[in-house]
């Protein structure tokens, strides 16, 4: 009997490791593990311990979490052993591992906050000494692209530093300031991410933006926010300290927010748009690239837009607010860099054009990628879409994926559906179209097929890549 109980505990350890990995990938948010476990048991597929998209990394934070998990787990076993036979208690503890990890996450939250405090204090002091003008960027999507373009536009006029890649939470931003902010920096561009109300407000307490941008509000991470209205409230916290506010008015909610801010009359408001020329700054995409307008007047044109027009408009507006001459901003747009894995174009050895949009996971970005696919390769070539669909869209996930698939059918001749997470939705959207559908278990399998099948003149779009937890 003891032997069986020990065997169950060994399984529990292996099980705990994979849930710890989920916890790490899900940004250590308490509750996320149980939610995932629930999904699994419903879909009935296990998560491999060593994954492709993320490995368990034994950081200090993970060690603390593992320790707390063991501590709680032992507590669970002892508690149930008092009520039931040892084997039953062991089995219950095994089933409860995801909940135990979530419990440990909850316990770890104050410990983490305390551990971070000296780093945040150091960063605060550094910002107070260097005194850069801080630009805060948030939004459901387009944050990183906007940041990269903005930094490039300002570079010719001021010394500028941008927070790296997706260092957009408390720990990441403190690290960016402590480790990369040079003493002579005029402008610091900070990307601010949030999974719930209060987080951005906390960031702004020690990293207060003077210029704030909200790029878009969309159905991203809806599972964590609940609704797009809650998302808006959480993102709006970035505006509190700002004297200049830049909002993408093409987004209905942000347009309303802009009206409210205009009515209050306390901040300089810049409305940007990709459709309305009369906006404070407008960037209109056309067949020859894009046109940049300021207050309805054409400032210049650019042959290719580095990212979605609304993101470019946000960046141009912020650059203007920071004192970059309009002509210089437009001139610099021409050689603005593209954020990596956000819609990059390459040509494979076979001669096929490869569009890599694997980091995107939002409907607007997906539509833009489809437009590029339609213009890529030679006119007679095959157009291929490889995608597992989009995730974290809450209740709208099925609908959005079906719609995306239907849109894709207008452009692609072959659609490769990866995994099972959104398979039904994608197939529904493709039903009744003339598209050839292929199903792949993993992206690697799909990529192998692409390499073997496509030749010069063909084009393939890899849209989104799901973390391992989704299959």
């Amino acid at each position: 009997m003891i032997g069986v109980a020990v065997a169950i505990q060994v399984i529990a350890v292996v099980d705990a490791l994979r849930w710890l990995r989920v916890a790490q990938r899900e940004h250590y948010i308490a509750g996320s593990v149980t939610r995932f476990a629930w999904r699994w048991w419903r879909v009935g597929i296990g998560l491999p311990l060593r994954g492709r998209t993320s490995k368990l990394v034994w950081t200090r934070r993970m060690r603390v979490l593992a320790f707390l998990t063991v501590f709680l787990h032992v507590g669970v076993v002892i508690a149930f052993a008092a009520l039931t036979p040892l084997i039953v208690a062991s089995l219950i503890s095994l089933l409860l591992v995801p909940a135990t990890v979530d419990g440990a996450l909850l316990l770890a939250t104050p410990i983490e906050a305390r551990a971070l405090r000296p780093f945040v204090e150091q960063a605060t002091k550094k910002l107070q000494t260097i005194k850069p003008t801080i630009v805060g960027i948030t939004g459901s999507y387009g944050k990183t692209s906007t940041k990269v373009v903005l930094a490039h536009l300002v570079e010719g006029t001021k010394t500028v530093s941008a927070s790296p890649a997706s260092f957009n939470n408390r720990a990441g931003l403190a690290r960016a300031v402590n480790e990369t902010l040079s003493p002579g920096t005029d402008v610091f561009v900070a990307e601010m991410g949030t999974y719930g109300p209060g987080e951005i407000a906390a960031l702004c307490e020690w990293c207060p933006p003077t210029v704030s941008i909200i790029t878009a509000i969309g159905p991203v991470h809806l599972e964590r926010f609940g609704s797009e209205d809650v998302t808006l409230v959480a993102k709006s916290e970035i505006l509190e300290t700002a004297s200049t506010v830049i909002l993408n008015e093409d987004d209905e909610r942000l347009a309303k927010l802009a009206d409210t801010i205009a009515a209050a009359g306390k901040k300089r408001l810049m409305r940007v748009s990709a459709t309305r020329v009369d906006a404070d700054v407008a960037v209109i995409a056309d067949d020859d690239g894009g046109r940049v307008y300021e207050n309805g007047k054409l400032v210049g044109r650019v042959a290719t837009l580095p990212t979605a027009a609304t993101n470019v408009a946000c960046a141009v507006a912020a650059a203007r607010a920071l004192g970059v001459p309009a002509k210089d901003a437009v001139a610099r747009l021409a050689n603005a860099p593209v954020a990596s894995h956000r819609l990059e174009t390459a040509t494979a050895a076979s001669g096929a054009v490869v569009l890599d949009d694997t980091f995107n996971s939002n409907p607007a970005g997906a539509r833009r990628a489809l437009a590029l696919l339609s213009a890529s390769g030679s006119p007679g070539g095959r157009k291929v879409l490889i995608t597992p669909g989009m995730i974290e869209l809450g209740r709208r996930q099925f609908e959005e994926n079906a719609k995306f698939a239907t849109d894709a059918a207008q452009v692609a001749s072959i659609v490769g559906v990866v995994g099972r997470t959104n398979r039904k939705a994608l197939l529904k959207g493709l039903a009744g179209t003339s598209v050839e559908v292929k199903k792949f278990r993993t992206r690697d399998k799909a990529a192998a097929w692409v390499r073997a099948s496509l030749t010069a003149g063909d084009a393939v779009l890899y849209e989104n890549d799901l973390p391992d937890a989704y299959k």
Partner: protein
Amino acid sequence: MAEALVLFGGPSPEHDVSVLTGLQAARTLSASEALYWTRAGDFVIVDASLEGKDFADGVPRGAKPARITVGGGISVKGGMGREKTYDSVVVNCCHGGPGENGTIQATLDLAGVAYTGPSVDGAALGMDKLAFGAACASAGIPVLSRVAFTDGTKPDFDGPYIVKPRFGGSSIGIDIVTDLDTAWARLKANPHLARGAVIEPYRPESIDLNVAVRAYPSLELSAIEKPTRAGGDIYSYKEKYVGGEGMATAPRELPAQIPSHLEEKLRGYAREAAQVAGLRGVARIDFLLDGDTLFLNEINTIPGSLSWFLWVDPVVPFKQLLDDMIAEAAARPTAKYSAAGADGAVLRSGASIASKLA
């Protein structure tokens, strides 16, 4: 041979390239640790087997905070609260900014640490395009007309012009303009020109010719390199460095195919310039060839990849180059400050301070 500690990074626009130079040097020296100067200006000891990408977003994992103390050298906190002090020659692989303009050199001098590359004076002179150009001209080396450029400056030559930061180690911040109005406007708009700018005539037809020089064990010149431009107006920072490997893989003709009388002239000027610069370590001297006329353009006192790839004739392997620099650091120390002569006589004989002020 003294132990070597490679220093790279620094709060400079050329931070990233310096990381590549530094890692190449550390790898060549089989060093286990290196001294990394962060973009934020802190010093840390890092594992020398790291790759460039480990430095892309900040300080790599496992870095240990280091200190440079006046008279106390370079140290890190070891286990059990003990300090570990490095008794090594610093191999300076910093490009641009405070790593190449005399700042870190002065810091190391005060800390009592021997280092490779230029001394305070050599670094400061080499970083100042105006001063170095003038010093070369006074030594009879042909240089382009180059004058200090401020708002309203009217140089006595015609456009197109090239406006450069007066202090700056690379092509960052360089503007080519056709008229003076635009040039003055750039002064306000271009942050790299804020600390001072120079203006000179732009010669679109000219080609670049570079040569590496070292002074130890004896004055020696590398093969002459002709970088090949990938297009655009100037040989841009991106063309040079954004291939991923740093200068070593940039496109070039090596050795450059130029007439022997020009090569001889260039080599003569380079030797002369090395004297003017107070050369220490390996420097790269850049020339412009316009038709049949040679001009000395500038000196890089800590060039990208330490210009090791230019030493094909004579052949000097990178390891040898580094070893010689480390030996030079010990054999030709930098500033030795002395209070000789200040023997207190003035102090003893003088009247009170109050009477001097009266």
